[in-house]
């Protein structure tokens, strides 16, 4: 399969993970499982980001021995896109922050009602 290059494969994996994440978020009743689904969703998105920066046959965006330093413009033709890699770093950190907070919430919710079923927490409605 000539046109199924690495970028496409990882893109596909990213999408699949996102779908799985959404499935978990929407159908799991246990709050911890929902949180895990969120991390799967985040991971999917992160893979998506990185794969969109991928260019076939190129190296990491670090100018060292692996980049033939003939001239400056050569860097242009030998590395993958550095921007998505920077963005994914931010996305990961944000995901970490949100997950940490969600877990703290889960602890408090459990303390409140001694259950982690999400449909038990509907005090506010209508």
């Amino acid at each position: 399969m000539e046109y199924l290059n690495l970028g496409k494969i990882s893109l596909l994996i990213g999408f699949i993970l996102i779908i799985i994440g959404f499935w978990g978020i929407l159908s799991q009743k246990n709050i911890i499982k929902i949180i895990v689904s969120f991390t799967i969703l985040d991971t999917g998105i992160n893979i998506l980001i990185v794969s969109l920066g991928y260019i076939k046959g190129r190296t990491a965006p670090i100018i060292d021995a692996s980049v033939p330093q003939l001239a400056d413009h050569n860097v242009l033709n030998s590395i993958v896109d550095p921007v998505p890699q920077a963005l994914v770093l931010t996305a990961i950190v944000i995901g970490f922050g949100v997950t940490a907070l969600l877990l703290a919430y889960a602890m408090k919710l459990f303390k409140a009602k001694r259950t982690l079923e999400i449909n038990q927490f509907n005090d506010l409605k209508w």
Partner: protein
Amino acid sequence: MVSPIYIVAAALGVGFAIGVLGKLGKNFSGILTLLTLGFMTYVSSEWLYAFYFGDQVSTYVFTAGYKPPISINLLMGPQEAFMSTLINVIGLLGGIYLFFNFGRKGRNAFVVYLVFIMSLNVVIMTRDLFNLFVFLEISSIATAGLILIEKGNRAVGAGFKYIIATSIISSILLIGTIFAYFYTGSLNIDDLVKSDLTTTTGGLIAVFLILIAAILEMKPFPANGWGLDVYEGSHQGFSAVVSAATATASYFMLYKLLDIAGNSWDHYIAVIGAVTFIGANLLGVKQKFARRLLAYSSIGQLGLLMLILGLRTYLGDNLNYVVFGILLTNLLAKTGFFWLVGIVKAKTLKEWAIIRRKPFFLFLMGTFVFALIGFPPFPSFFAKWTFVMDLAANGGFVWIAVILTGSFLEAIYYFRWFGYAVKADDNYNFSFNVRWHKITPIILLTALLYIIGYLTAQHTELGRMINFIPLFFVLILFALDFLPVFIKNTIAIIGMGIYFYFIYPSLSDLKLLFEVIFMIGGILTLIAGYAYKGKRSGFYPVAILMYAGLTGLIEANTTLQFFFGWELMTAGSYFLIIRGKRSMPHALSYMLFSVAGAYAILAGISIANIGQLTTSLSIFNNIQYFPQWAYGLLLFGFLTKTASVGIHIWLPGAHGEAESDVSPMVSAILLKAGVYGVILALIGMSKSQYDLSSLTYILGWVGALTVLFGNISAVFQEDAKRLLAYSSIGQLGYIVFAFAIMTQLGWLTGFTYVINHFMYKAVLFLTIGAVVLRVGTHNMYEMGGLIKRMPLAFVAVLIGITSLSGVPPLSGFTGKWLFYNAVIEKGWYFQGVIVFLSGGVAFLYLFRLIQTIFLGQLKDNHRNVKEISIWFLIPIYTLLAGLMVFSARPQWVLQPLGDMIANYMPQNSIRWDGAYAYTAIGHWTGSGVMMTIGSVFLIVFLILKLSTRKAHKIKQFDIVYSGERPDRPDTTHVAYNMYAGFYKAVWPLTVPLAERFWNWMTELVHEAAGFTRRIYSGNGQAYMLHIVLYIIVLFFITIGSSI
């Protein structure tokens, strides 16, 4: 100029430092936080000042020293400065409000709050898509944290729902962002706007994902359960900040991002906004809890903002003016409201009755309610006006209907709530305490609301011409509210007198006539106020507010001034009406019909305004497009005030339950405002180049039927004041009918009725009101024989009903005579007969009025009542004198009026010769009739007197003659159910069809709301499902077909 980057640097620097410095104490951290917020406010407001009062140009701030798109940049322009100043001001005040709440949670809470406000600033300023995402996440996380300053599981639940919902939204935004970057090679929003992203399928989807995320941040109905829970579940101090500051940031984010899609999304945004605005407000109607109600209202306002944004092509350059007006009002008033809820702590709306234990709080609440509904002088009034005018000018009639419907729904629940606060039973044993740091921010907001309202008016071409002097007088009376009645009454009367003296020379004809009714009538009815003791707190400001509105109507030269006056008058009269003991439901229905009427007027004016070069009131005379609609809407609006049949149901309760001196104000005087409007519309129609006779024909029927139903209903009232109220409906029907005839004679009839009704209805309401004050009941069968105790009142009522009934010799007959001439000349025989027969019905209730109250047997408990108060007698007899003059010398008034009418109705079918009036049908003279009738009366009187010399007085216990059982007079009293026989004949006409119809409508709205709100099941997972469903539905609606 301090660079806006210092907003970020200061907040973060201080935030990080508090980690260590916080050891010095919680209060230290708090004060440091407030100082930083103060600094942030200073920076943004300095820019704002420079933009609006200097010649500052928009400035980019480059981070890392590189130009965009290489590096992230921030933009500080006029809009950004405005928005971030708003956010910072609210942030600062919120920090003060929540100072001790944060303190209880430790220094970290201050840090989170500081970072929260900072992140919203960046969301406003940044021009980088990914940076926007990052700071949006910061604000979401901070929100999820700050929700927790409220104790209890509800807050935890709300926070959890909020964080999972926003996580989904930000995931969608992130996917969109990364694909947008992939296709354009840039993350700069300006680059994305310039790029041709939407030409490729992938780019199209990326734009969709970005925009849907921005839309979801605006909490669109129905995918907003999480948003509602945050408003309801978190501490109200913080809900206020979310409602104000986060909403501002979300709006601006959508505003920025919308350009990426060009104009192609405007329509969708408008529809989404409309659905949200109406949906949220509809559900608000059913809501019983204060917190949740405010949540619905906040979401409704977000919907309105989206609606405005979506309709930006209609608004053109006025977009920002409208947005700023709505946003400012919403921000200040809603924030204040949330904070008020935080202080008062009453859960259900009914429990809000406790707020009036501290009248100042009631004042604050009233201010917020009227600001949110868009009453003058608040900025939203001007914004709404401009919005509707611009929409009409560009043909957006459907949108006008949407906006007015949503606003109306909002008015329903706010005024119901306010009604509870003013009037519901307060028998709760909990109270509320006020601490300075909680109330100070609210007072500041309120002051800002008034000041900005005034400044908004001064900065618009239209508003600058509005006369604020009467309003300042209202404010002065507010400040003097602590004084006793006697002094305040004197001040009010003198103020109105002076005002009238100065305004008098500038008026003539129509304006003069109505100004005399409003002002002289106002002074006369105020005189009755001397009869009251104590402080009568709150009465004078609102009474003068109504008169300020009324005189504003007269002085108005432009449509905006007219509408301004109309709304002030409505507000003032609402407060007057709700003062009555059992007035709560009646004041609400009065207000709702008034608001609906005002919106009809607004819509009518907006249509009239199309294609006009001037904003003067003269555009009514020259409506160029859709004249039937424009005049129809205007007339409908005015008819809500004259209480025509079908939309009359508010009047009996409102007038009947009002205080004794308020009834004449709202009946004899206020109803004339509607008449004035009708006349203005009809003048316009008379000059119109279009054939509008079908409209006047309908109006004529409306008038005729109103007379019939009003009079018949009046007959069966046991309550004297309600009887007079129904009578008013009938009398106003006469007036409308007469004007609808659209001939010189018809109008002359109309004016005669206007003047007559003003005088005799004021006399009757004042007298009956004064009697009620003495005997302590409204029920006529509980009175009787009062002629012996209060002969002066009897004479007043006798003259009043004689005049009303239209029998010679008083001025009522003048009206009748003109009326028959006009009807015959016009050829409206059928309607004429209905009105004629209704006149006969009037005798029934008028007879009852005098017979059951003043004749018959005096009740035991009334043996010692005194004559009605001198302070009522003075205005009553002054008006009677006027009535007599008008009866004897009608030509003094009618001749100039006839000449004036000739300007519009040039038939010239009446000719005056001294005291004689000639028409094609015959002639008549006022003084002549008076003398004739006087002579006949005298002769008959003498004959009877001579022929009945043997007659003797009936004693009370002479049952054979008096026909009353003294032990239970109310059941066998002839006055009780007096016209039972007549009722059998006409009962089909007394079926309260209009009441049933409106009840059915109310029921329908409540059922719809009750059914719809079930989607808010409280389950966080369901809310996430709503969000993703919303996304895919919108996907298939918007771009699904084009890929």
